[in-house]
């Protein structure tokens, strides 16, 4: 289902989480838009299929906030594409977001695994 606003119904991703995933993807190496979409699909083993309608607004957002920067370059097929790369602020934000995510997930896991006696 193609939804043009912030949340991608197919994968249930919320705006902030998508931003974090894009940052992580770019931490590995600079990439163009299509590549990022493909990489997210690959690494998540098909769980997250992010469509263009969510990706491109996210790119614009991250660029506006100074977390990534863009550059037109030639692709491996000698075509022109816009490559995104992390900025130092982007790296710092990613580190913070990763830490927050760890804390949140651990807490949720604890709650989900708790048996009657512990609550």
């Amino acid at each position, binding site marked *: 289902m*193609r939804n*043009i606003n912030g949340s991608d119904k197919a994968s249930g991703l919320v705006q902030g989480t998508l931003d974090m995933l894009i940052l992580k993807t770019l931490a590995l190496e600079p990439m163009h838009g299509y590549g990022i979409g493909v990489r997210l699909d690959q690494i998540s083993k098909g769980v997250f299929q992010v469509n263009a309608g969510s990706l*491109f*607004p996210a*790119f614009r957002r991250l660029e*506006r906030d100074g977390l990534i920067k863009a550059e037109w370059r030639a692709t491996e097929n000698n075509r022109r*594409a*816009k490559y995104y790369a992390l900025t130092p602020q982007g790296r710092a934000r990613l580190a913070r977001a990763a830490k927050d995510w760890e804390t949140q997930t651990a807490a949720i896991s604890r709650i989900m695994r708790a048996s009657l006696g512990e609550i």
Partner: protein
Amino acid sequence: MRRLLAGLRALVGRRELDRDLDDELRGYLDSLIEQHLREGMPPEDAVKAARSTIGSLEAIKDAVRDVGWESRLESIWQDVRHAVRGLRRAPGFAAVAVLTLALGIGVNTALFSVVNGLLLRALPVRAPQQLVMLSTRHSIDEGYPAGWNYAIWDQIRHREDNFDGAVAWTVFTQRLDLAQGGERQPADGLFVSSNFFSELGIPLLTGRGFTAAEDALGSADSRVAVLSYGFWQRHFGGTADVVGKALSVNRTPVTIIGVAPPGFLGPEVGRSFDVAIPIGAAPLVLNEPGWGGPAGRSYLAVMLRLRADQSMESASTMLRGTQRQIIEAAMPPNETWGEVQDQMLKDPFSLTPASAGTSELRRQYSRSLVTVLLIAALVLLIACANVANLMLARSTAARHELSVRLALGAPRRRLVQQLLIESLVLSGLGAIAGLLFAGWASGVLVGQFSTWFNRVALDVSVDWRVLAFTAAVSVATALLFGTMPAIRASRTAPGNALKDFMSDLRSHGRVLHLKGGLVAAQVGLSIVLLVAAGLFIRSFDRLASVPLGFESERVLVVDIDTSRAGVNAQNRAAFFESLASAVRAIPGVTNAAVSLNTPVNRGVIAVSNFRVPGGPELPPAERRAIVNLVTPGWFETYGIVVRSGRVIETRDSAGAQAVVVANEAFVRKFLPDREAVGAVVVNEMPGPGQRSSSLTIVGVVGNAVEQSLRDDAVPTLYQPLSQFVVPVPIVDFGLSVQAELGSPALLARNIASALTSFDRNLAFSLHPLADQVSAARQQERLVAWLSGFFGVLALLLAGLGLHGVTSYTVERQRIEIGIRMALGAQRHDVVALAVRQTIMMTMCGVAAGLVAAAVLTRYLQALLFGITPLDPATFIAAPALLIAVALLACYLPARRATSLDPMIALRCE
């Protein structure tokens, strides 16, 4: 911050960014196609699959654009253009709405400009917030300006180091005479301390200000003057070489040394000056030798500039600490500390903030101005209701378009934004038109404040406050009349466009209720306005019909200044009596006489305390009576009725028995149960050299208005001028001339030449008594006129609103009316049906309005005269008038209803 810059860059480089995005998306699409090709799909399938995965490229572009704040701005700009287009397509609606708003916003802005100029605007001087006026506690409590004599000002000036500076000027505008004799050429004079222009930081246009040497009392150097900009333009035509020229002021030559800048009208708001002269020159120009002395008159206003770190409290404490020394130092050289000084010490020095200057006009008018401003706000509310109704009708007509747009996926928020922007555009246009109207109207309004003797000058130009007010009012107006129709429109169900007319009917009932509510509110507000207008108009009418006690139509008043005519206390009476005879000889004059005061003159009057031996014992406060000095023929000139006894005649000369004529009010208070004629009255405060303080009453006359039209008759005694030989230097007298018929102004030329040939050194000015009388009613007339104007406006708007609602009702009920007529209903039944709802709304509004009016008019008490705030006649006439207008407004559309052809009506729209 980064977002701000990025947004600005996006606004500017829009095209380039769009192209960039387009390229990027196409790249994405191409990559996807390649992927499919690699997986082995045939080319056309690959393209189709890729396109269907991505979806609409335009939709993605929109989503990307929405990320930045500038897209909001762009959508607003789009809506503005859309609104303007829409208004161009409906010029009738646009014209009516803009005109209504322009009128409502315009009158509010005009009134606010005046309020701004009078109450709010700071003086165009350096650091006005540091300025304070020196006053006494008693003056502040009583609400009148404190005046100081020169001796006290001198003491303050010597202590100037305690503050950042001190300036002084004369409290009352001095009417100066520029002529060399004969009929006066009046100019408004202001006597100022030497540091006036420099301390206040007023940059002179040409020339210079005064020096300390020029402020020495009575010195020849002090005969210099600074002109105001307006006077320089009017009198000298703005010639560049005016510095150094001579000017004759009260027959004293002064040299012009400078011209003030255009924005400076004087230290008092509402008053302007023509010529500024150092205080030191006052004894020369005013010809009062005792002017600067310790016993001199107290009419200097003193303004202090506080130091930056000084508070008003600390300054006034410091002043009070030195009050005793100041009073002592200001005493006449041979006098010792006495009761007068004790009295002065008991009234402590006090300071009041003066950043907006001081103003007599403000004191007089501020209450009525604010009231009229509130009334104007009511008118604006009514205008808003009208425009809201118009917008409701418009959005109802456009509901199909709105439904279609909603069905196509437009967010409701965007629809509301668009309708609100349309309201803002309308109200913005109205505000611009209103500002232009206000620019003209405020000038006219200020002109209304001026009377024959009091030229009012107010700076009502548009400054930031006025602009902010207009902007705020127009935004508030837009929100008021636009919010409801916008919200209503956004609630349109998307499928409504597809439904047919009949099922739409239910929603029209709701619209009708809304419109009806609006109209009822309008009617209610109009009632309040009409009641207020009625009260003010009746007040003015009552004031205008106050019996004056004299005939004002045929009398011409000549204010005479005898200062240079060699008249003293001894020869005064003879001088005036031969003057009066000379004037009586002019053809067309039936009577002439001289007196100290003329009625309603606003000049200084003489009062004294009196006691009647054997009469009722009155407390000291109640023993006051006005004393007027008259020559024979005075009562006849004014046509004052004689109740008993006789009036002042030529036999009442200096050596004869000391007599006096009393008015009815005096008799009623001092001799209630005795025969007045022949009774003796004792003056408890005779002036020095007054021959006898025992006066015999020889006649009683009817009450004649002396000072204010609003007050009850004041006890007054008339003494013969010849018997008043007190050597008090009074120089101003009034010659009253009664004309035979027609307008007394026609005789002005002849009287002027007769006076000049009688004595060249007399200075005088003439005006009909009627002018003096109407000046006394000026404020009430202004308020009555303004509120009447607003009342008519409100009536008009309410009528338009009612007409609109009835038309709407008739239009919507067309089918029902058609059916009824086809079934044989009579005309008047149909009319009644159409009109019934409107009349019900009107009656609701009238009831609510009357209740509100009854509660609110109580606050107008102070401005009314002769009627109560719940005056029955007004409370009956106002609703009657409105109901009449309502009936008329309903009648026309109702008539249209009856002329409907049932067959046409029954067809679907």
